[in-house]
């Protein structure tokens, strides 16, 4: 979760609007859908890298984004709402607790569409089970892209630790395991000595066997 080190983008999260058939006050059945709109300040857009949140009894999440069109032709090419996540499952079984209060993070590659120049986000929460009194999501954070993904910075030896040996190794090749174990021990010995430096000093004033006269007269 290297992206978590980024600062989340500032945004305004509106309060959830529940959708219900009939009159909210008189209807006995509980609402199964809630919508949360997230606006960016000052009509900014961001290149969304990842969104993170904590679930609160939401079973499925859909995500729609308002993307500014690619061309800069103003009103003629209006921004469009695009669904970028459809019924993403947060609780495997809506009637049971599993996943109900977990932290989730959905990143760019899991989305159905490109996440550049996003102006607004709408989260559609669904909870088909009537067991829960209330459902929502909390601690919503939007992480902008643009920063270099830390995964690109991994050295080769770490990203492919089990390098495959080529099938056709030379015939006369010595035993690599045995050689490796000896070389590693030689490495350890050298490293160990480097870590074991003396704290005391002899206190030499000479440079390459010669003394600086000025230094000697002052000490």
């Amino acid at each position, binding site marked *: 979760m290297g992206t978590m080190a980024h600062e989340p983008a500032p945004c305004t999260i509106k309060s959830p609007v529940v959708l219900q058939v009939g009159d909210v006050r008189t209807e006995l059945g509980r609402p199964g859908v809630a919508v949360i709109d997230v606006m960016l300040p000052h009509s900014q857009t961001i290149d969304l890298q990842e969104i993170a949140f904590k679930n609160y009894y939401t079973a499925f999440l859909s995500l729609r984004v308002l993307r500014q069109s690619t061309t800069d032709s103003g009103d003629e090419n209006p921004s469009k709402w695009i669904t970028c996540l459809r019924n993403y499952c947060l609780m495997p079984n809506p009637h049971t607790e599993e996943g109900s209060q977990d932290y989730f993070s959905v990143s760019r590659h899991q989305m159905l569409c490109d996440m550049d120049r996003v102006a607004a986000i709408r989260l559609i929460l669904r909870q088909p089970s009537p067991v829960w009194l209330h459902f929502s999501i909390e601690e919503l954070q939007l992480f902008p892209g643009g920063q270099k993904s830390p995964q690109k910075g991994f050295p080769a030896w770490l990203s492919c630790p089990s390098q495959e040996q080529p099938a056709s190794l030379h015939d006369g090749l010595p035993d690599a395991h045995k050689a490796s174990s000896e070389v590693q021990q030689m490495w350890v010995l050298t490293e160990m*000595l480097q870590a074991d430096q003396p704290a005391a000093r002899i206190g030499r004033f000479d440079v390459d066997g010669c003394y600086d006269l000025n230094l000697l007269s002052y000490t």
Partner: protein
Amino acid sequence: MGGPSTKMAASPSPSAKMADSEKRRPSPAIEPTRPAVLINCASEAEDAFLLQAGVSDMVRGALLKVLEARPEEPVDFLAGYFNRLMQSSAEATVDGGDPQRQLHWRLDRALWYLRLAHHSHSRIAFNNNVSMAYDSLSTGGRRKRLGVNGKLYSELLKMTLQGRGATEEMVAPLLHKITCQDHEAVPCDVFRYGVLTCLVLLEFLAKASTLYDALDGGSGTADERVCLAVLSTLEEALHASDASSPIRYLEAGSKLGPDCLALAMDKALAERKATVAMKKEEFLKKASAIFVAKVKPVG
């Protein structure tokens, strides 16, 4: 051993002894229990004798050394230890006035201390022995604390490296880095570092020798290309030092793993060059150069 004399050794004071023997003599009733008393007394007497002769202390010291060093062959270790004690006591009595011999004897003893415990088995034991060696070198002569001068220290380092399979060519660059001028006073810490460096070099060379045997595949001579590839891999692993230490260790571990090493060797063999054998001495020399390059000079 007669009855009265054993009693004398065993009893705490002459008056107690008197009381004891007087009590016993006129009473033949306790005669049957006498053998048991005798055995008891005899064992007590032996204890006292051992204590008097310093054997208990010697054995305790020896056992402590065994515990400290935990040698592979404790019996051999003990035999060597006692042998050494005998030698040194003999030398101590005959040293007379010859300062040269005395010096040699002190160096010899210091070296023996240093070799008692392996530096990586138990660092505490090793450090103990180092300070024993340092003390034994510094308490020579008439004055009490002479300290160790550069001459003595350098001499000891040379002796440490002598006759252990390291040639002059391998040893000289290392000694150049860690020896001191004859007149310099050597602090214990520098002394320890110098000695440790020498011992580690010897071990490093032993490993390099085993490595060469692994590389030659039983034929007695190893291919120069393979040898150089392995050594340069080692050098690379040692030089990858700009990262913080845990990352550096992981990287080195990956570089020196069997897979990467096999690839490096394979690449070297794939080069279109004539097959030239590399002698073992040559290999060891190159390996020791890698080690010595990493040793920080004292100063």
